[in-house]
């Protein structure tokens, strides 16, 4: 995975993940009614969860105090480290790694935590990409976050290309998928 670019949709979605903050000033536009801009005020010293793209910068400017997202709390990290393969990453965050990479500057342990998780889980992804699916694999596939799910899909495509070609299916010209 390369550095996220400005136009990267996955990054845009990842930085929408919310983090708990304590407001240091009164801010307008944070409530659910604030879509059109500014009818919902939240006051100084309240705790509020804000999207990371908002919280990160406001934290730097001391308008809010950003806390560590619970998905990277020490307890969570310890829990996942015990058996990375059985963690339901998708339900923790669809963008676990991408969000973690963003939070990494704030929590020095994150690179280590993500690395462990990733290295363990890609072994299994590689195995699954080579085999037919069984129940256990199905559960694991359901637990993948977006980065992992994309990787699995790419692996399966690349692995499938050889048998497909050996069975002489690679040369069939088909209708383009973009046309319904």
């Amino acid at each position, binding site marked *: 995975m390369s550095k996220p670019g400005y136009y990267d949709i996955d990054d845009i979605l990842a930085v929408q993940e919310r983090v708990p903050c304590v407001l240091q000033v009164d801010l307008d536009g944070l409530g659910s009614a604030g879509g059109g801009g500014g009818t919902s005020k939240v006051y100084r010293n309240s705790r509020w969860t804000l999207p990371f793209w908002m919280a990160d910068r406001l934290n730097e400017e001391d308008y809010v105090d950003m806390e560590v997202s619970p998905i990277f709390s020490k307890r969570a990290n310890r829990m996942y480290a015990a058996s990375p393969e059985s963690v339901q990453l998708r339900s923790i965050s669809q963008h676990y790694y991408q969000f973690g990479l963003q939070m990494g500057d*704030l929590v*020095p342990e994150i690179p280590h935590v993500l690395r462990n998780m990733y290295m363990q889980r890609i*072994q299994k992804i*590689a195995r699954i990409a080579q085999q037919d699916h069984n129940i256990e694999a199905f559960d694991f596939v359901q637990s993948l976050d977006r980065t992992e799910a994309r990787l699995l899909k790419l692996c399966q495509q690349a692995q499938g290309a050889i048998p497909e070609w050996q069975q002489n299916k690679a040369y069939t010209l088909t209708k383009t998928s973009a046309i319904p």
Partner: protein
Amino acid sequence: MAITTRQQEGFTMPELEYMAQCEDITIVPLHRMERLELMRALMLKRSNRCRIVAPEWLSYEHLHNLCKREDQPDSMFTKLPFHYLEIAQILLTNAEDDLIDSQGVRRLIQDLREVRQSKTREGLRMLNPLQLQMDNLSIAEINEIRPLFAHSFDMLRRLDELAGSSDVSRQQSQNMFADQSYSEFDDTFSSSYLNPE
């Protein structure tokens, strides 16, 4: 896009077959031996103008030995032509009658591929964001593992950079945490975060 998303992740198998056809091969045209590009040989073969001489490595005996060696624990990848899978497939499809025991050869190629596949999976454990040597892998095998290895390599690289940058910014973040007294942080951060052993 001018090339498809699949092509941005590597080559298609037909593309590799295309490359493989530029490899040289020996044929027997009208009793005289010649060496020429595979695609030429195929054209002559299709019009019954030659017999193709199977390369030495594409024999039952040779492949059988390779399989045995490949299967040994902690062995490297055995040496095979860069386009071995494509050439084997092309010859098995177009010149089966020029191969001895083509069924056996076909099976051994498949076996070889599977052993080598599980070896590359082992290699994944050793992946690091600087370099990993993978001698004797063929291009089809590389193409097959490319998305997995390349994306994982890049992920590890970014995590490495992040670890590096937080080494530098640790002083700052230490200060930052020292400046502000979060009760929550006392729970979520132990001193081990700030002073790694």
